[in-house]
């Protein structure tokens, strides 16, 4: 049987690239920082949802600077007892800050935010010029 070294190495190289791609796409490597955020868009508004379980409402700051929305704050760790041994430690604590570039212009004065069950929802109504317009053909 004839064994083609060159094509064997090419196959290996392809395999390696594919594995790299899987890791690049997985959420573990790409989004390991707190908090995790989803962004949604409809015709009238943008909605940003962030996972902030255990964070006090007063410890969350939301600022908008031009088209950059920044979410910052602090997540305090609760002490459960004097003498404890940690068996698992998967949750993260401390200061956090994340910024997002908004894809469209929004009405700055009409932004609202709601925090319930550890989920923060920021509603950002689109500016009139960012809303889709239907254009009728005259003739």
């Amino acid at each position, binding site marked *: 049987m004839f064994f083609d070294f060159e094509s064997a190495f090419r196959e290996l190289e392809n395999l390696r690239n594919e594995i790299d791609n899987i890791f690049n*796409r*997985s*959420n573990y490597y790409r*989004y390991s920082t707190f908090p*995790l*955020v*989803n*962004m*949604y*868009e*409809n015709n009238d508004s*943008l*909605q940003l*949802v962030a*996972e*902030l*379980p*255990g*964070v*006090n409402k007063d410890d969350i700051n939301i600022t908008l600077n031009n088209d950059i929305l920044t979410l910052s704050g602090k997540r305090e760790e*609760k002490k*459960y*007892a004097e*003498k*404890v*041994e*940690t*068996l*698992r*430690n*998967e*949750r993260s604590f401390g200061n956090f800050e994340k910024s997002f570039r908004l*894809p469209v212009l929004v009405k700055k004065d009409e932004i609202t935010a709601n925090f319930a*069950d*550890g*989920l923060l929802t920021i509603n950002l109504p689109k500016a009139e010029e960012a809303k889709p317009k239907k254009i009728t053909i005259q003739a």
Partner: protein
Amino acid sequence: MTELEKREQKEVTTTSAEQLTDAKNSYKPDVDIFYGEDKLFIAMDIPGVKKGDVNIEVDENNTLIIKAKTSFKEPEGALYKQFGIGNYYRAFTLSDEFDKDKISGNLENGVLEITIPKKEEAKPKKIEIKV
């Protein structure tokens, strides 16, 4: 659900305890576990879950199973997603030293706290020896 969204779901780990019950279509929440002198504390992040939608049970194999149902209605039109919205499932094997009839839980602001006391005979005792 699109292929990409499926891939972004956190994997549900299958430890021996977790294989006992169907954990499909659930997310694996992050957890901290602390072992105290007379109790075990579990803190679990389950954002989107309201009080009354959490089920904590211990089965005949001494497996602590936590299931939680989300109340968050996901908006349409995702631009990007770093987390999936859905129910939560996690399970752990408890050792015999814990009193499974005295488990208590509290849900506050998306964090579930579970306390499991040790059985009386398993608590550390101070023994004084007079010589």
